[in-house]
C-alpha cells in the first residue's frame, strides 16, 4: 500500500468495544497505521476538532447522538465538508440507506462487517482523498507562481514616478490601462526617455498566452532596452534590428506585434514604425475627425530581412494619441468601428474640448472595462498620451 495512504488518520466511531477492536484489528492487519477511536457521537466531534482525520468510520445506532446527527453536524461545518464518512449499517431498506446519504454520508459499509469490503472501501476513499490533496497542493503552487510572475510583470510596466517625470520634461501626460488575462498574456508597454524632452514608446503583444508568452515578453523587454541607446531615435531602424534579434531568439510560431514611436511634443509629431500592430489613433483638438495611423507590417520574430518603414502622425497641442493592443479592437467590436465610435462619442469629445483629457481617458477605459468583463480573455493595453492642454 502507498505510504501516504497507510499514514492517513482514520477515526472509528462505535459505542461497542468489540466493534471498535474488530475494525481496528482489520485495518491494522491491512496496513493502516494511524487509527483512532471514539466511543460515541460527542466523543467523535471532540476528537475531530482536536485533530481532523482523513476518514471517518461511523456507526449509526449510538446512544446520545446518533450517526446521522454526527454526519449532519460535520457537513454543516465548511472545514469538514469533504471529509469522507463511511457509515456502517445493518439498515437494509433503501429508505434507510437514502436517509444516510441525505445526512451527508460518503459511502456505506454493511453489517455484519466483511473484511474485504471494509478494507476495499476505506482504501478507495483514502486514495481519492490523497489524490485530491496532491492536486490542491499543486494547484496552490501554480497559482502562487502565476501571482508572482504577474507581480514581476507589473514591475516591468512604467511606474507612476516615471510617467510624472515625463509630464514635466516632455509636456505630455501618460495614462494607461492594462488588464491581464487570468493565465498571463504577452502584452507589454514601456517608455524610453530620449534627449531634448522626447521619449520613445513601445507597445508589444506576444503571440499566445500563458507562461511561455510572458517569458518571451520578458526577453523582448530586455532586447528593447538594449537597442534603446543606439536606435531609440529611429523607429524604422529600431524595429528592423529588433526583428533581426528576435528571429534568432524566438522559436517558430512565437512572434510579437509591436509598435514603436518617438513622441516629440515640441515638434508636434509622433514618428513610429509598426509590426502588425493595431494602428495608432490621433484624437485632434476641437471636433476634427480622428486620424488613424498605419499598423501593417510583418510581425517581429518571423523572418529575417524584414524592413520597417517610418510613418508620422501630427501631435498638436490639446490633442491625444491612443495606442492599444488589438484585443481592444476585438472587445469593442468591428474593425476600427467600435473604438472609433467610442473615441467620437460625446463624453470623450466634450471632455477633450474642455481640456479634460483625464475625463476623456476615463470614459474610454470605463466603456472598455464594461465590454471586457471582470477577467478578460486576452490582455488589454491602452496607452493614452495627452499633449499639453489635454491633460
Amino acid at each position, binding site marked *: 500500500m502507498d505510504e501516504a495512504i497507510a499514514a492517513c488518520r482514520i477515526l472509528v466511531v462505535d459505542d461497542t468495544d468489540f466493534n471498535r477492536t474488530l475494525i481496528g484489528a482489520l485495518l491494522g492487519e491491512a496496513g493502516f497505521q494511524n487509527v483512532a477511536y471514539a466511543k460515541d457521537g460527542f466523543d467523535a466531534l471532540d476528537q475531530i476538532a482536536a485533530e481532523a482525520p482523513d476518514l471517518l468510520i461511523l456507526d449509526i445506532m449510538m446512544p446520545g447522538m446518533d450517526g446521522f446527527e454526527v454526519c449532519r453536524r460535520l457537513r454543516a461545518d465548511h472545514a469538514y465538508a469533504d471529509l469522507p464518512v463511511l457509515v456502517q449499517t445493518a439498515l437494509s431498506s433503501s429508505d434507510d440507506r437514502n436517509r444516510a446519504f441525505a445526512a451527508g454520508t460518503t459511502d456505506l459499509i454493511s453489517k455484519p462487517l466483511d473484511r474485504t469490503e471494509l478494507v476495499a472501501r476505506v482504501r478507495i476513499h483514502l486514495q481519492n482523498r490523497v489524490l485530491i490533496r496532491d492536486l490542491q497542493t499543486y494547484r496552490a503552487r501554480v497559482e502562487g507562481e502565476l501571482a508572482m510572475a504577474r507581480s514581476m510583470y507589473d514591475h516591468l510596466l512604467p511606474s507612476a514616478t516615471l510617467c510624472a517625470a515625463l509630464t514635466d520634461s516632455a509636456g505630455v501626460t501618460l495614462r494607461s490601462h492594462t488588464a491581464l488575462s487570468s493565465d498571463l498574456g504577452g502584452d507589454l508597454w514601456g517608455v524610453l526617455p530620449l534627449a531634448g524632452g522626447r521619449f520613445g514608446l513601445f507597445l508589444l*503583444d506576444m*503571440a*499566445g*498566452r*500563458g507562461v511561455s508568452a510572458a517569458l518571451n515578453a520578458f526577453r523582448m523587454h530586455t532586447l528593447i532596452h538594449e537597442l534603446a541607446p543606439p536606435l531609440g531615435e529611429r523607429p524604422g531602424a529600431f524595429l528592423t534590428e529588433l526583428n533581426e534579434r528576435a528571429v534568432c531568439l524566438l522559436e*517558430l*510560431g512565437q*512572434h510579437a506585434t509591436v509598435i514603436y514611436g518617438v513622441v516629440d511634443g515640441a515638434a508636434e509629431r509622433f514618428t513610429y514604425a509598426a509590426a502588425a500592430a493595431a494602428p495608432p489613433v490621433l484624437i485632434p483638438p476641437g471636433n476634427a475627425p480622428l486620424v488613424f495611423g498605419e499598423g501593417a507590417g*510583418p510581425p517581429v520574430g518571423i523572418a529575417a530581412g524584414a524592413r520597417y518603414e517610418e510613418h508620422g502622425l501630427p501631435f498638436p497641442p490639446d490633442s491625444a494619441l491612443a495606442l492599444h493592443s*488589438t484585443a481592444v479592437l476585438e472587445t469593442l467590436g468591428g474593425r476600427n468601428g467600435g473604438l472609433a465610435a467610442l473615441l467620437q462619442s460625446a463624453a470623450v469629445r466634450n471632455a477633450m474640448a474642455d481640456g479634460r483629457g483625464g475625463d476623456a481617458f476615463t470614459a474610454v477605459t470605463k466603456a472598455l472595462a464594461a465590454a471586457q468583463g471582470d477577467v478578460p480573455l486576452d490582455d488589454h493595453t491602452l496607452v493614452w498620451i495627452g499633449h499639453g492642454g489635454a491633460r
Partner: protein
Amino acid sequence: MDYGIEDKEQETLVRLRGRLTFNDHAKLRALIREMLQNKAKRQVLDLSTLEFVDSAGIGMLLIAREEMANADKQLVLRSAAGQVKRVLTVAQLNKIVTIED
C-alpha cells in the same frame, strides 16, 4: 476550430471552420501530421468558413508552412474573409506564405 479534408487530383483541400486560437494547438498539430502523410504537393487551407484567428493561430499557420516546406510541399491559404483576412493583411503574411483569394 474543426476541419474537413478533401483529396483532389492536384491538391489536398482542408476546410477550417470556427475560431483558430491558442487552444487549438494540439488539433492543428494533428492536422499538420495528416497533411504531411498526404501525397499531394499542394496543401490548400480554405479559410472561407474560418471566423477568427488570433496571434497564436497565425503562429500555427507559420509552423504548418514550415513543416510543408521541409517535406517539399507547398502551403496555400485560400479565401480568407473578414477578421481573418484583415489579420493576414496587417501581418503582411503574403510575403511568407502563398495567399489566394
